[in-house]
């Protein structure tokens, strides 16, 4: 019965409720959109990072021939892989070589990370990479796609990203010189042939190219059973920390020297390692989150701005609901008096008003959340190109990507409905405190 009364009241005060509901719905929609944007960025980040530079869990390591000479190398790779595959039979495991150097074309040169892969075990990578049409890197060229990623199986081959190819002024089939600059100032070089050019993956892909694993081996004179990192992909990336802990235990048991966990990308560890005294091999376990740590500031920024904005809006909406309920209580004082006179309890009166607010909240936020979800999904499908380079850099993607999570919709509805109810608390309390006699006499 309360529900009916509450609903009737809402409908009766149509104009007031309508505008308020609209505001509530819009704000909920905004929150949903912001959350979807934040999830979208996280998603882009994980996707780009896991394609380009990290597994969900990484078993990397450093080899120091002397205290100050640090190489991102892991020896006895096959044995370590066997251990991982034994510990995590479900996981997908790939080995990649890590290098850093300069790529030189006939016209210019760029500095990039060189990731050496064995393309035959990189099926998901091959599927995730989309090759770019020639028009992406050659001014005025046709839309045709040249090259094949599978050709990375041939020795001395490389895959570039479109922006790099454009900058270097090269096409599929051209050859480039790769020079590795070791931290010690030695420079070795080799020739590589471009076999494929891929679409950029945000601006992250500017910083790395993919080469046949032996290119990196050759540049650094590394042996067959040496790798850079063993990347482990799980079904659920949220489980990374637990999996990492399990692996650590197994590795230590097997007598490996594993570095203390440090939440930082591997390339920031060279400097500190140069100063520490040990020599030989140490392993380093990290999660994807550690490897993209320097990028997470974007998420922090988006979340902070969203939080500030939504908080201010919460206050505004709260004031609005309080105001509206206050008026409702005043208008209906006589009605309250009558209800109380025919035996309705104080708390029931209060519950009636709170219920009214809850109903308003649920309806409005429900509609808002649904609309927000739909708009976010629509935007994600439409994927408009972001006009500003700076925004592209911030969002780590050239087009807008949004992810709607049901839990977030629930969160948005709950937050604003909760707010509506709590804002109705004081007006409702005032209604509950009214004496039936005074209330019934009240006019207007």
């Amino acid at each position, binding site marked *: 019965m309360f529900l009916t009364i509450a609903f009737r009241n809402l409908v009766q005060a149509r*104009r*007031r409720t309508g*505008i*308020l509901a*609209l*505001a509530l719905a*819009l*704000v909920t929609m*905004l929150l949903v959109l912001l959350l979807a944007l934040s999830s979208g960025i996280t998603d882009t980040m994980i996707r780009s990072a896991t394609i380009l530079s990290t597994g969900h869990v990484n078993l990397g390591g450093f080899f120091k*021939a002397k205290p100050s*000479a640090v*190489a991102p190398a892991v020896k006895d790779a096959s044995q370590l892989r066997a251990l991982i595959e034994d510990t995590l039979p479900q996981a997908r495991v790939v080995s990649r070589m890590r290098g850093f150097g300069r790529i*030189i*074309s*006939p*016209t*210019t*040169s*760029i*500095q*990039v990370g060189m990731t050496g892969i064995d393309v035959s075990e990189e099926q998901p990578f091959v599927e995730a990479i989309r090759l770019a049409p020639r028009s992406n890197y050659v001014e005025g060229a046709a839309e045709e796609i040249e090259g094949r990623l599978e050709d990375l199986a041939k020795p001395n081959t490389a895959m570039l990203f479109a*922006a790099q190819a454009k*900058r270097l002024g090269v096409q599929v089939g051209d050859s480039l*010189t790769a*020079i590795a*600059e*070791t*931290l*010690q*100032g030695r*420079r*070795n*070089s080799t020739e590589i042939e471009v076999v494929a050019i891929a679409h950029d993956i945000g601006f992250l892909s*500017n910083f790395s190219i993919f080469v046949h694993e032996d290119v990196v081996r*050759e540049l650094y*004179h*590394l*042996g*067959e059973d040496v790798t850079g990192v063993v990347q482990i992909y799980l079904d659920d990336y949220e489980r990374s920390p637990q999996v990492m802990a399990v692996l650590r235990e197994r590795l230590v048991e097997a007598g490996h020297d594993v570095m203390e966990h440090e*939440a930082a990308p591997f390339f920031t560890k060279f400097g*500190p390692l140069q*100063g520490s005294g040990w*020599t*030989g*091999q140490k392993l380093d376990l990290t999660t994807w989150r550690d490897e993209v740590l320097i990028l997470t500031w974007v998420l922090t*920024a988006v979340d902070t701005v969203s939080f*500030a904005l939504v908080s*201010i*809006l919460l206050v*505004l909406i709260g*004031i*609005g609901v309080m*105001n509206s309920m206050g*008026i409702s209580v005043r208008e209906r004082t006589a009605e309250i008096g009558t209800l109380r006179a025919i035996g309705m309890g104080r708390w029931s009166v209060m519950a009636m008003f709170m219920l009214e607010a809850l109903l308003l909240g649920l309806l409005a936020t429900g509609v808002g959340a649904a609309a927000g979800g739909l708009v976010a999904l629509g935007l994600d499908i439409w994927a408009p190109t972001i006009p500003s*380079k*700076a*925004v592209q*850099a*911030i969002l780590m993607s050239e087009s807008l990507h949004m992810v709607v999570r049901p839990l977030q919709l629930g969160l948005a509805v709950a937050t604003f409905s909760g707010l509506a109810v709590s804002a109705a608390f004081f007006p409702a309390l005032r209604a509950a405190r009214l004496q039936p006699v005074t209330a019934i006499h009240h*006019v207007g």
Partner: protein
Amino acid sequence: MRDFWARQGLVFGIALRNLSSHGTRSLLVGSILALGTTLVLLGLALLDSIEDSTEASITESMAGELQVYSKEGRDDLALFGSGFMGIDEIGRIERVDRAVAAVSTVEGVKAAVPMGIDFATITRDGELEGTLAELRDAYYADDEAEAEVLIGQVKDLVQGVVDELRRRREIVDDPAELDASIAEAERALGEAFWAEYAQDPLAGLEQLDTKVAPLATEGELIFLRYVGTDIPAFIENFERFELLQGEHVPSLTRGLMMNQKFYEQRIKHEVARYFDRVHRMALEQEISIEADGLLRTIARRMPTQWRRVAQQLDAEERARLKAELSAYLPEVEPRLEALLPALLTVSDENVQERYDWFYEHVAPLIDLYAIDVGDTVTIRAYTRSGFLKAINVKMYGVFRFRGLDESDLAGGHNLMDLMTFRELYGLMTPAKARELDRIRDKAGVQDVERSTAEESLFASSETVVIETGPELEGLGGFDEFEDVDFESLRDRSGRVFDASFSREDLAQGMALNMAVVLDDGVEMSGARRRVQVALDEAGLALQVVSWQEASGLVGQFIIVIRLVLYIALAIIFAAALVIINNSTVTATLERIPEIGTLRAIGAQRGTILFMFMTETLSMSLVAGLFGAAVGAGILLVLAQTGIPAWHQVLFFLFGGPRLFPSFGVRHVLWSIASVAAVATISSIYPAWLAARVQPVEAMQDGD
């Protein structure tokens, strides 16, 4: 007329009475308006402060208000990088003198400074190389006692090389090749070698220098970002330039000057840098070592770095430091291997004390800076076609940009003379071109295509250590190696080849871009048009951009932040609009009888409208003033204490660890005006409702 004012006064009075009689509602709406004003004021003032600090960081350090560069480049000018690790291809200003002449006569232009921004690396000498150089000096100085000590050190270091190679054997692809190297190094440990050395020290040194030293992976690679420019002109026109150590690079001389920030963060001893960083974060930014993840990581890394201190000490210094440390840390085992890590273990409580102790007792013993003022530094860079080039230049001094010490933007660039830049860039100087022509005429060498020259370099073998390629000198049109002074590369004490150049060479050569500094108070967009016209009239294919455009992503970043703020304010205003409107409409409905009465006794519609608007406006003024006062109060407090940059990105935006915001009258006016506008818009509908009320409605029942 008097009647008019009397009536308005009356209306105003009614409006005020209404406001106070509907206390709660007015308070609600008023607080929304006040909150809005505070937000707008804070937002605008903070943003402008950030923008001002960024603008100063950019324009007053190296960009000038305008930048001129080629129309023909492939990439846009981005002074602070465009998101690639490499150099943008922005084309060239072929003749510096013509561009400067065209621009400097333009009204409002104070000066034009040619520039070229590029990357290079500095390699620090390896320990073995350094010790060998000292041994050579000792030999020439006939200091046998010193030579004896140094020979002992050389043997230790060679033993180190052998150990290193043995370990490396575990991961290399070709152990046999490495075994040969190991044998080579071991030979230098044998008695036979040192017996030979006693006979002919110079031959022995040569052997060690060329055969053994290169086997060690030594030295450290430091990336150097620099602005190649006409240094005297640069110093004259960028007023924030301030010399801290050493001297200016003399006019028409090659030389390098290091930015203090770079000097402190790259050239300084690693352990001192750790101390500086922890000290700054813990004490200036008041971040707790215990609570903050990043700082904790840094602090945890510190004790592991003790060897960097120990390896720079000789026996006597070790003994002295050990004694002092034992006295300072009596509870620690009295060995340097335990004492130094203990000293470097910092916590929130002891960080200040340890920092002071380090600088008082340890710093004087170690090489606090790897490069000192007056040293000659070997700069290496890849030329545009990817060849390595090395040049020795003298480091003349350390400078900073006054007030921008903390800014990453202003602090990241060092200064180099324009001639050295041109050579590292890889273009021929007119003098060199003439000389090459002469050689070519004489020898009748045909021009070798650059591309085939490269092939002949790389196709021959898979692995080329480019530095050891002097045989390329004979390649005719190939200028890249012309200048690598292989002798002085090896001999650090060596002379820098002719360090002076002529004014003509400076003027007639190229630059990549040119900063245009305007006179104070000159309006930028007008000056920009005039400069462009002057360039066009001079027939130069050059374009002018503002500093914002020239700063690449950095400038856009600020625009994005501004956009986000505006959108956020717009959303907040929209919500406020709805809430205020809602509340005012209900209030209006309640007042229908009153309005009807007023209308009945002769008030015109206009008067009612005016009354409502007055009500809203006066309320928004009162609330606005109140909100602005709160905002101004907050800003004044912040201007004293500063807003700490709790994140690296903010550090960058704030141009330092704290932002000290400032605000002006225009911020206050804007905030009040925008809120008044919102209030007015939100009351249009209710006011219109009220004005529509018919007098007869007053007589009807209030319900």
